[in-house]
Every structure is written in structure tokens, then in C-alpha cells.
């Protein structure tokens, strides 16, 4: 016990003089954690390749049409490409809980919430680079079909700049949606399945239900001039995470999807953002108020 009085001054000075986890430090650590795993790189590589390839195939198929507009095919690869950012986000959000690494993370930063914020920022940066690369792959994908028809692709005019911006925001948004789900659910597989259902399946189901030609709504059968009334399923679709995200990948000049309110790409983006914020807030409450085990 006498040793208690002979604590080396050095050890004590170190403990008090050194500073703790600032936000910038947590961000650097989260970036290291994200980029030191193999899965994000695999997901990114596969996403870029698949997105580009599907865009190419889709544009190639459309190029036989007389009214072929290459830019219309630009976002077709995202049908499958959207899975990548979603998976990436879920892995970041739930990965630490799946592996037990959260114990290390939250003993280093017992205040916890800044860690979640740092994960959001680190993932945003990574997903932004991924979304830009995937969009570039789409641009490359429409080039050969356009050239085969002798059409010059103009990315500076018309719908193209807005569409490309929307595609990048779409990728980043889905990654953050995945992170929020993963951080809330804390288990990879359930979070992944929930995300895929909300983003891929739900919009398709709602679109089929909302289609005025298929639907039972008698008021909508008399449409002739494109004045489509909004339906309940259509509205739900536009406000669902996946439906809202898809609005960002539809050129503004196309107008609303049948039966859905006209939110436009910006409106769709804001709806997705609201989903992300709500889920992140729920995850933050759980993280802050409950034990991490």
C-alpha cells in the first residue's frame, strides 16, 4: 500500500496533461476504421462496375428506338447500383455492434454521440466519392450506344447536370439511410433486409398498386390529358425512402410519377433526408440513453 504514495510524477502528469477525444480526432479515427476494412472497397468496386455495366446494356437496348436519347438512360444502372451504398451504410452503422468492436469505440469515447456524428461524416465522404465514380461509370456506359447512333452526348445542357447531381445525392443519401438503419437496429442482416425492402421492394409494390390503370379507383379511369389525380399508394410511394430517393434520379422535366404528388428531385431528396434524420435521431437516442452491450 505504501506504493500509493510513490506514484511516479510522470505517470500522473501524462494522465492529466494529455487531451481526449475531440470531434476532429474521432473523425480521423472513423475514417481510418472505414478505409482499413476490405468490405467498403469491395462494395465500392462492385457498385461502380455493375452500375456502369447495366447503364451500358440498358442504353444499348434503347438505342434501337427511333427517339433514343442517351441521357434518358443515364440513371438506369442505379436500379441495381443503389444496393451498394445501402449495404455500405448498413455495414458502417451495424458493423461495430456485430463484431463487438463497439466496446473499444465507446470506452474510448464514452460520450458516444460524437462517434455517431463522426461515422456520418466519414461515410458521407466515402459515399460521395463512390457516388461520383458510379455516376461517371454511367456516363461512360451511355457513350458507346450514343456513338453507335452518331448522337453527341451533351452533359452540360438540358436535364443532364441536374440528373447527375441527383444521382450523386441519391448514392450518398442511400448510404446514410443504411447507416441510420444499421445504427438503430445494430444487427447487420435485419438492417440489410429492412433497407432492401424499404428501398427496392416497397416502391415497386406501391407503384403497382397506385397505377391508375390497374387500380380500382374509378375516378382515375377517365384520364385523357395527363391530369392524373394523386392516389394514396402513389403518395405513400413518393414519401417512402426508396420512392423519394428515386425521384432524385428522374429528370425534373419528366413531371410526377402517375398517382404520386409532384415533389420533384429536390422534394424527393428532402423526403429522404427527413427519413435519414428521423432514423439517426432514433439511433442517437438509443445510443445515448441505453446501455451498449
Amino acid at each position, binding site marked *: *500500500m*505504501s*506504493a*500509493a504514495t*510513490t*506514484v*511516479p510524477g510522470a*505517470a*500522473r502528469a*501524462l*494522465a492529466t496533461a*494529455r*487531451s*481526449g*477525444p*475531440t470531434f476532429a*480526432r*474521432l473523425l*480521423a*479515427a*472513423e475514417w*481510418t*476504421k472505414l478505409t*482499413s*476494412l*476490405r*468490405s467498403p472497397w469491395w462494395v465500392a468496386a462492385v457498385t461502380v462496375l455493375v452500375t456502369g455495366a447495366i447503364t451500358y446494356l440498358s442504353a444499348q437496348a434503347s438505342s434501337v428506338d427511333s427517339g433514343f436519347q442517351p441521357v434518358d438512360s443515364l440513371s438506369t444502372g442505379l436500379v441495381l447500383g443503389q444496393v451498394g451504398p445501402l449495404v455500405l451504410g448498413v455495414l458502417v452503422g451495424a*458493423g*461495430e455492434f456485430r*463484431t*463487438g*468492436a463497439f*466496446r*473499444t469505440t*465507446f*470506452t*474510448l*469515447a*464514452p*460520450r458516444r454521440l460524437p462517434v455517431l456524428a463522426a461515422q456520418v461524416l466519414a461515410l458521407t465522404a466515402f459515399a460521395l466519392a463512390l457516388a461520383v465514380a458510379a455516376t461517371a461509370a454511367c456516363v461512360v456506359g451511355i457513350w458507346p450506344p450514343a456513338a453507335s447512333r452518331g448522337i453527341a452526348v451533351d452533359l452540360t445542357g438540358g436535364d443532364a447536370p441536374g440528373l447527375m447531381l441527383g444521382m450523386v445525392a441519391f448514392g450518398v443519401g442511400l448510404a446514410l439511410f443504411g447507416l441510420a438503419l444499421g445504427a438503430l437496429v445494430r444487427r447487420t442482416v435485419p438492417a440489410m433486409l429492412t433497407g432492401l425492402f424499404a428501398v427496392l421492394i416497397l416502391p415497386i409494390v406501391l407503384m403497382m398498386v397506385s397505377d391508375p390503370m390497374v387500380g380500382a379507383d374509378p375516378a382515375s379511369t377517365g384520364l385523357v390529358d395527363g391530369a392524373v389525380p394523386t392516389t394514396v399508394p402513389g403518395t405513400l410511394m413518393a414519401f417512402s425512402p426508396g420512392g423519394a430517393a428515386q425521384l432524385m434520379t428522374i429528370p425534373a422535366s419528366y413531371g410526377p410519377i402517375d398517382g404520386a404528388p409532384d415533389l420533384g428531385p429536390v422534394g424527393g431528396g428532402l423526403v429522404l433526408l427527413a427519413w435519414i434524420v428521423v432514423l439517426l435521431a432514433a439511433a442517437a437516442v438509443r445510443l445515448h440513453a441505453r*446501455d*451498449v*452491450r
Partner: protein
Amino acid sequence: MIEVEALTKRYGSTTAVDGLTFTARPGTVTGFLGPNGAGKSTTMRVVVGLERPTSGTATVAGRRYADLPAPLHAVGVMLDARSVHPGRTAYKHLLAMAQTHGIGKARVREVLAQTGLEPAANRRAGTFSLGMGQRLGIAGALLGDPATLILDEPVNGLDPDGVLWVRHLVRELAAEGRTVLLSSHLMHELALCADRVVIIGRGRLLADATVQEIVARSERAGAVRVRTTDPEALARELLTAGADVTPQDGGVLQVHGASVDDVGTAARRCGVTVLELGAESGSLEDAYLQLTGDSVEYRTADTLGRTR
């Protein structure tokens, strides 16, 4: 300094830790002992702020863990070898830890060397053996040069070399004036490296004493072991002298209630040749089994447990 006071942690109707109070002091290795499910890990998780106590307090250096300005510098924590992402290399895992407190790469290299992990620095943690995982956990705990260390089962899965290394390391850390709290289910391990032992069973404190004090409580403490050419004759002699004798294999007698001197004199009296004679010290293991056995026994008769 780690102070746990009247700590209780319940999960629904299950009580994992029940009114636990103990202190781990600077310059001391405090062993934390208990059967599986006794509440050791729960207590440690509460101390480092991963879980909140239902009631009571746990502080490190006089503060709640969550209020420490620089946790990594104050407390080195190794909770579980599975606190590492298996897809990350040892170096990157430690680097990310270091970055949270602005610690440089040089220090990361240092703890890798100190724990003998240098050759495995660029291997993914998922490929590590249990022993290497423990070394990585210890490396992380040492990273911030903390005044307090909390190590959950650090020798679990280590080879004999590693066990020796940990034993020396914790002694060294305590000699430098640091507080070391070390849990183990290996009783003899704690006997060799702990100054004090805190024993819990079913979430309750069973003993908080020095290793010697606990050994002295052991049933076998004070026993004398004697090997003779004629154990029966000596046993008769000792029994008449009022001692308690337990015959064992190979002509050995275990004697209670008599000193080594008494047994030697008795042997001379009955003309038996003594081949071996010595005091048998109790082991921490015996004391531990006795204590935890009691805790199970008294669980239904609570008043008995209290009066002890």
C-alpha cells in the same frame, strides 16, 4: 484508483451485481475473482461506462468514467478479445484507437513491440489466435500510458510464455504506481500476481482481502503433511494427542490441529521414522472454492450468509 460502491446492476428480474463495494488502489494488483456469471464482466463494463448502474456508483480516479476528459490516458481497458473488428489489421485497429486521443504512430509501434505483435501488425485480427487477440487487447490498454488498467481475463488463451509475460507486466505496472484490476477464473494465477483479491459470487462480495489473508482462511491452512514408514502408528499417536488426521496415499498423513513440531515429537515418541515433514499452506484455489461454495449454500438461507 477504482472505487465501486454499493453497485447494483439488474437486467429485468435478473440481478447481475448486487450491492458490490470494493476499491482497487494505486500501486496494487487487485485480482477480481468469481465463477462464471458471478458479475465480474458486468462490473467491469459498468466501471468503464458501457453500462449504467441500476444503483450505486463506480468511479475511476474519483470521477465517473464518462466524465473523464481523456479516457484512454486515464484507464487502459481490455474487456474482451472480441472487442476488435476481425477485418481490421492489428496496426490499423490500434491506430484508430490512438487517433481518438491524438496519439502518434510511434506509440502504436511501441505497444506492438512491447506486446510482441510486431510480426503480426499487418495481419487482420480475425486471423489471430486467442492468445494473440489477448496481446492485441493488452496493447490497446497500454496505448495511452494510463494510471489505471482494467483487464478482463488477460491470461485466458495465452501460452505459458504469455502467461509469464502478463504476470511480470502487471507486477511492473503496479510497481510504477499504477492501479491494476485484473479478473481471472484461474485462482493460482491471481495467487502469483495479485496483492489483493476481491472475490464475488452471484454478484455479491464474498471476500476482499490480501492473498495471504484469504489463504489463511482456507481449510487446509495450518495443516501438516507427514510421510512416514508407519503411518498407522503415527496416526494413533496423533489422534490421542487430540489432532485430526486424514490418511492419504503413499504413507502420507495430513494433520490438522498440530504444529510441525508437535508431529515431529509425536513421531519420536512412537518410534516412527519420518521421511518427509512440512507445513502445508492453503492455496487461494481452496479458499476460493470454499467461499464460492458457501455463497451457493447460503443463497437460500440469507441470514446465515450475513452473519458470517
